[in-house]
């Protein structure tokens, strides 16, 4: 059953369309990759799906969450959805965490908010979550501040925070772009594991085709605010129909060929 569906989503800023007529649906256990270059409207689409666009931007179309149209809904209605039905993980895990708040309290925040847990219960759950995302020594780590963790650890915290309230849809907005390659692989493995465990539907946004291809089963290709191609990953990789998708596949293939002697590109 489709949990999140958008049809004809259009975002304009001062009459200038930034995202044009984007439609897709996400169900539990779906894994959709959204790929496109910087500025193609990927992140805007993600923010629109949570009702978090700046007020100066206008949206039209429909955003159905559990069959209910949320586009233009008041903030109060959106707040019930955010974190509980749809969650998001951002690209830069350092800035996405409050620098002065221990990470445990940041994970516990949504739990207390949506599930009404008291402080100690929420903290216990936060420790559990730290364990589930394989952070070392969770009981002590929950009291650390974000800058005391490494980049990969911070992204694990962000994942725990996003998944703490058991959302049914997870939007990952370039979650590995800010990490170096080895850490990126570890985070992707973790993401894979968590998706299998929780059955969450995934929208994985990236500009990196090999990364998306490794995580997603369906692929949406976006350029200049429009979806130019969509379909199962294998189809898009083998028979790209749009010119842009062909370019993406060709450049990714070059990288893979270069990496082949050491087989680094595909070891995941």
């Amino acid at each position, binding site marked *: 059953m489709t949990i999140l569906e958008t049809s004809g989503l259009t975002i304009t800023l001062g009459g200038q369309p930034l995202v044009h007529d984007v439609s897709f649906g996400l169900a539990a256990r779906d894994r959709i990759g959204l790929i496109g270059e*910087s*500025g193609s409207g*990927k*992140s805007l689409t993600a923010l629109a799906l*949570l009702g*978090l666009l700046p*007020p100066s931007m206008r949206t039209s179309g429909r955003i159905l969450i559990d069959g209910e149209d949320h586009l233009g809904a008041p903030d109060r209605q*959106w*707040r*019930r*959805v*955010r*974190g*509980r039905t749809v*969650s*998001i993980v*951002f*690209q*830069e895990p*350092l*800035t*996405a*965490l*409050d*620098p*002065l*708040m221990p990470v445990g309290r940041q994970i516990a*925040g*949504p739990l207390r*908010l*949506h599930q009404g847990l008291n402080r100690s219960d929420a903290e216990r759950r936060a420790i559990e979550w730290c364990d589930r995302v394989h952070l*070392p*020594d969770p009981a*002590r*780590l929950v*009291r*650390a*501040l974000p*800058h*005391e*963790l*490494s*980049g*990969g*650890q911070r992204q694990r915290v*962000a994942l725990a*925070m*996003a998944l703490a*309230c058991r959302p049914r849809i997870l939007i990952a*907005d*370039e979650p590995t*772009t*800010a*990490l*170096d390659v*080895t*850490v990126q692989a*570890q985070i992707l493995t973790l993401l894979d594991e968590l998706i299998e465990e929780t059955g969450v539907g995934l929208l994985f946004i990236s500009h990196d085709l090999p990364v998306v291809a490794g995580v997603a089963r369906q692929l949406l290709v976006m350029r200049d605010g429009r979806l130019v191609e969509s379909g199962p990953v294998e189809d898009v990789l083998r028979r790209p129909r749009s010119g842009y998708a062909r370019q993406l596949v060709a450049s990714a293939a070059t990288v893979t060929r270069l990496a082949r002697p050491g087989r680094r590109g595909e070891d995941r």
Partner: protein
Amino acid sequence: MSTPMVETAETVEAAGTVKASGTRRRPGWRSPSLVVGAALLLTVLALALVSLLWSPYALDHTDPAARLTGPSARHWAGTDRLGRDQFTQLMLGARTAVWIGLASVAVAFVIGVPLGLLAAAAGRFVENAVIAVIDIVIAFPTLLLAMLLVTVYGPSTAVAISAIGIGVSAEVARLTRISASRVFTQDYVLAARTCGTGPLMILVRHVLPNIWPTLLVQATLAFGVAVIAEASLSYLGLGTPPPAPSWGRMLQEAQSTMSVAPWNVLLPGIAVAVTVVGVNLLGDGLREVLDPQLRQERRAADR
């Protein structure tokens, strides 16, 4: 959000482990201005506190035989033209200065912080309205405001406190708005909103904890401003009415005998200067110790 950022070297997962909590909160007492400022201010505070229990003479005690004497064993800071002990006056003046300073800062923060937060959190219309009000109050000299209030309500401690408090609150509101706006644009606020956190919770959980060091520094500076304003008002006869002593009025009273007894002018002047320099140094020191940016850099250097 979609701008790729290059992470620093600490991204290697295996290398980064949580530091032992023992070394986490380093005391920042290495800041010399903090130490000197605190020492100066503590001296003034001590004078004020001791005056509650003890002073060399009673406030209204006069010694007609020893008028305008210089500092001696009997009168540590000399006497004025009525033969009043100047050290007693200085001690009780410190009490007035500290009390009016603290109360004014409290008034300024009670008005300024909510106003600044409101401007930062609400939409553009409210924000512009608040900015206009702040600009008007800043453009209006505090002393003029105080004179206005005094002509209407007569000179009293409460009038002095409200006048100074309102005058300073504009600065506080402006600083709060600017710092809070900066926090509101941070990714972690966006992240909190993606978790469904409401605007009030974001203020309490994320904005206030991130701006309070700035506000604390501002409070120390505002205290200095308030002490000077109180001295100026009393000097002009608009502050705390007699018999309550005040450094400003001591200056004014000693003016006519300045050539005979220069120390009578010097001492209250020095008292005001010491207090203001003290709070400014303390503010600088606190900024060094509390500023998250500086603190992080220092901690990174310690690694």
